[in-house]
């Protein structure tokens, strides 16, 4: 063989194998002969020509072979794959029209599963993915958070830290700081509540928003405290409060009692770079002190708490930015030798940073639950398709016999299932419009303007359709493969015994369904039981009949002295109103999810080894607060009128703190100190209060210090009043406006509702899990019945034989029920195990209920066994009633 022929032989290996096996040697010989004939002269040109011919020939022939083109007959051109798809789609639609009930039931079933996942995805989309209008190139944005080593709290940046990072080589093109505030805005001498942000001058440039009118801040405008009183307002506020006045630029805005000049209006629909909260006014960092009503501007500036949003430099990424921030941070020493905690760089998400982790946990759990529901619906539909495929086995058998390839039939059946699922996806998205509307209309009992905007957009639609197509393929493939599997003669016979494989597939479907519904129902059961516990949970305080008023005298630009007087008058006078049981005040109200911490210094203990280990919760209260919330003292005394700003500072601690720092001793009379910006604040314990929940109703016990409000002094307090009727609360509200007409009116909020806020994730989870669980249960009951009834019908021949051979009716019944229950038990086992795993993920929503709560697990097992038993019993009874002669004659 010539070297060229050897090469040709090697190249042949790339071509069709069947051809090579059959004619490889002949082809090489022909090639050799061809070469000898054409290239006798040794001229390289003919040789090249031969090579180009045989290679083209091989390529064309291979392609024709792949396309299945017959080399013999000039039969009509084969359809292109695209044309085949269209034909499949037309065929699928025709099949759906022929069996409209099947189509409607299948599409509705799928829509339930798809809308469940799409609803959860919409929440994720609204809070994590979809940047609010006006935020541009959000993939380049990062947020930077300071972390505490104990991970107990969330820490903001001080102004020096921000300035240091912003001026360092940080791998970012822009780094902006922001902090939100609640303010009051006076228009035509009427005070309004407004949500605003204090931002660095480059904030708007950083997030990418454009001005709709006027301009944004100049860099020098955020440098000198109190000098540049300029403000940017939202388009929304411009229209709502100023009726779109075109001459708004340059006019005055009275914010928290200070006059600001409006220099710009943002582009329409910009609400800030965080989702859900409607931000209406922005002022530069230098106005921080004024907004907060500081008496000493530079001191206030030093204590500011800032969050950072930044834009990555071209070519940079989160990791590089993190390295740069770490380097910059290590070179930073905060005033008074405070340690650099470290800062984490995250890809930007529109959710408030502090809520991100909780939201991720919540969404993960909900995605699992919704995914399980989708699986159950898909299994139901797969089962329906399997039954239909069995009914169509003759049609399929005939087509196979007529020469249709199996691949072609599988593609066609898959097309049918994908179309069915896509229709379900579209319907599911429509349902999602409704469900997200319901979620968005959840009114939050807080005086902050919010817009929960979860409406599905193209992303949700794309998600729903992708999910639909994927499940359509995943759950359509097995029935399609089973339907077209070999055995022509069996299929063509009118009543073939079911292939064993199909039985096995059905068993897998039963197990999947039982497992999925067990998982769903256990999660729903746990959440429902824990929701029931919340109301009976011992919070350590009594919120019944308590109304809250969130006040902040800084919004009226009141000095600390004026504020003390205001709150003193309010509490004194309102306490004597008829219908007011008692009234008190606290700066950080419990069970609202918010908290405030201080670091404890103990005189006779070594300095703490790590930052954050001696952090305690801290709240300033009026002397009447503990009594109002019915938190009893277990030792010592209450605050008294003798404790004033001029006497030594005294505190009441909770039992947990007392037992942590002075185990086995009385804490009353003990002394400790708070770390502070200047000198430590010395404190003496005068009383020990019973433990009560602090952050959330399911919160763990935490050390807590109550400070006397006159000894610490603040201007933002939540006044709590235990009243006989809501109308009394309205009297208090009116009285607030009477004492200080400049203060925006404070709407009374029932304290229980305020607590509901921290229960909101659990509440939503409970609603979703209950709805999903109920849908799942119904689908499983129907699905199990369908699966078992069908497999019994398929076994009628076998049953007939058994009975002809003398099997008793009851033994046939118990055989069928036994078979069904065996599968149910396997599914239950898998489902309950999975539920135990998922329970860990939702533990934080269970408020002390064990994720392995035996009551829930056992009752769900019993419930499912009962339903499965019924679903088996009905077909079993029918099977046992079969006349064996009929069953056998049907063959």
């Amino acid at each position, binding site marked *: 063989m010539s070297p060229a022929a050897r090469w040709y032989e090697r190249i*042949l290996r790339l*071509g*069709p194998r069947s*051809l090579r096996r*059959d*004619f490889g*040697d*002949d*082809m*090489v*010989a*022909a*090639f050799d*002969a*061809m070469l000898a*004939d054409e290239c006798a002269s040794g001229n390289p040109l003919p040789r090249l020509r031969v090579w180009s*011919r*045989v290679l*083209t*020939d*091989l390529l*064309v*022939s*291979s392609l*024709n*072979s792949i396309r299945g083109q*017959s*080399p*013999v*007959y*000039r*039969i009509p051109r084969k359809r292109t794959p695209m044309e085949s798809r269209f034909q499949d789609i037309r065929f699928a639609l025709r099949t759906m029209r022929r069996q409209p009930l099947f189509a409607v039931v299948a599409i509705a079933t799928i829509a339930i599963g798809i809308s469940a996942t799409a609803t959860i995805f919409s929440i994720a989309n609204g809070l994590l993915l979809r940047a609010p209008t006006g935020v541009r190139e959000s993939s380049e944005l990062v947020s930077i958070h300071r972390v505490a080593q104990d991970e107990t709290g969330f820490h903001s940046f001080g102004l020096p830290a921000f300035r240091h990072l912003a001026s360092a080589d940080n791998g970012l093109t822009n780094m902006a700081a922001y902090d939100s505030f609640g303010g009051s805005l006076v228009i035509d001498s009427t005070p309004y509540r407004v949500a605003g942000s204090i931002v660095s001058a480059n904030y708007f440039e950083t997030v990418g928003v454009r001005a709709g009118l006027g301009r944004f801040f100049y860099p020098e405008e955020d440098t000198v405290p109190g000098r540049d009183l300029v403000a940017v307002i939202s388009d929304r506020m411009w229209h709502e409060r100023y009726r779109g006045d075109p001459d708004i630029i340059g006019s005055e805005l009275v914010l928290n009692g200070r006059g600001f000049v409006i220099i710009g209006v943002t582009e329409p629909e910009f609400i800030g770079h965080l989702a859900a909260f409607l931000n209406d006014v922005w002022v530069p960092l230098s106005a921080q002190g004024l907004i907060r009503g500081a008496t000493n501007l530079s001191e206030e500036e030093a204590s500011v708490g800032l969050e950072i949003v930044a834009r990555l430099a071209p070519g940079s990424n989160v990791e590089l930015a993190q390295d740069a921030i770490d380097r910059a941070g290590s070179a930073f020493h905060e005033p008074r030798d405070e340690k650099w905690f470290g800062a984490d760089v995250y890809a930007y998400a529109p959710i408030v940073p502090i809520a991100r982790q909780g939201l991720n946990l919540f969404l993960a759990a909900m995605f699992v639950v919704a995914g399980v529901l989708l699986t159950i619906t898909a299994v139901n539909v797969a089962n329906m398709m399997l039954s239909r495929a069995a009914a169509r086995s003759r049609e399929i058998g005939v087509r196979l016999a007529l020469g249709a390839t199996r691949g072609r039939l599988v593609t066609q059946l898959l097309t049918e299932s994908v179309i069915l699922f896509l229709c379900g996806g579209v319907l599911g998205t429509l349902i999602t419009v409704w469900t997200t509307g319901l979620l968005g209309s959840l009114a939050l009992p807080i005086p902050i303007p919010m817009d929960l905007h979860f409406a599905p957009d193209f992303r949700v639609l794309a998600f729903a359709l992708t999910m639909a197509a994927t499940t359509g393929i995943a759950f359509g493939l097995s029935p399609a493969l089973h339907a077209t599997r070999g055995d022509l003669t069996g299929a063509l016979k009118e009543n073939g015994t079911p292939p064993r494989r199909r039985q096995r597939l059905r068993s897998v479907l039963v197990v999947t369904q039982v497992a999925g519904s067990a998982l769903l129902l256990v999660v729903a059961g746990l959440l429902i039981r824990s929701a029931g516990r919340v109301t009976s949970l011992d919070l350590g305080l009594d919120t019944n009949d308590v109304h809250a008023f969130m006040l902040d005298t800084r919004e009226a630009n009141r000095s600390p002295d004026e504020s003390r007087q205001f709150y003193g008058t309010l509490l004194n006078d309102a306490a004597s109103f008829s219908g007011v049981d008692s009234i008190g005040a606290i700066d950080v109200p419990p069970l609202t999810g918010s908290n405030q911490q201080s670091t404890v210094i103990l005189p006779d203990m070594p300095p703490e080894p790590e930052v954050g280990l001696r952090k305690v919760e801290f709240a300033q209260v009026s002397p009447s607060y503990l009594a109002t919330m019915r938190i009893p003292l277990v030792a010592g005394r209450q605050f008294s009128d003798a404790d004033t700003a001029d006497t030594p500072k005294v505190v009441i601690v909770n039992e947990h703190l007392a037992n942590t720092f002075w185990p086995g001793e009385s804490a009353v009379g003990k002394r400790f100190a708070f770390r502070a910006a200047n000198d430590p604040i010395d404190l003496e314990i005068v009383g020990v209060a019973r433990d009560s929940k602090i952050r959330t109703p399911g919160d763990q016990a935490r050390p807590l210090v109550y400070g006397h409000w006159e000894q610490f002094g603040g201007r933002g307090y939540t006044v709590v009043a235990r009243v006989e009727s809501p109308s009394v609360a309205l009297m208090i509200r009116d009285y607030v406006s009477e004492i200080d007409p400049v203060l925006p009116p404070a709407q009374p909020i029932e304290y229980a509702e305020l607590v509901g806020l921290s229960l909101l994730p659990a509440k939503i989870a409970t609603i979703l899990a209950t709805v999903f669980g109920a849908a799942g249960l119904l689908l499983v009951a129907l699905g199990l019945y369908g699966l078992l009834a069908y497999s019994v019908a398929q076994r009628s021949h076998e049953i007939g034989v058994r009975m002809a051979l003398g099997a008793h009716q009851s033994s046939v019944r118990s055989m069928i029920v036994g078979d069904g229950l065996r599968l149910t038990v396997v599914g239950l086992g898998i489902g309950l195990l999975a539920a135990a795993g998922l329970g860990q993920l939702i533990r934080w929503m269970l408020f002390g209920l064990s994720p392995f709560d035996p009551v829930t697990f056992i009752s769900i097992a019993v419930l499912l066994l009962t339903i499965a038993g019924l679903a088996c019993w009905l077909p079993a009874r029918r099977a046992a009633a079969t006349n064996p002669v009929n069953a056998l004659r049907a063959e």
Partner: protein
Amino acid sequence: MSQPLRPLVFQILLILNEEETHGYGIMKAVNERTGRKTILGPATLYRTLGQMRDQGLIDETPTDDERRRVYTLSEEGRRMARDEAERMAMLVERARAGRLLG
């Protein structure tokens, strides 16, 4: 009447009707008869021969040289060739009637 054949298949049938020959012989004959306008290569040839053999149009007889199988026309092949020739003759008649041909 049987299905219309591809031109190459008809050519091969015509060649084998005149003489039995091996693959390379067919290839050379086809290339000469088509005036070397399109050159038949080994892959197309053997793929076609394989199919023709599978459908019973030609018979394959091994010779002493294993790589030189000789092909002969089968009865079925002869019938198909005749059908195809008649189809073509009919078309040629039409062309004459329409004065496309002299």
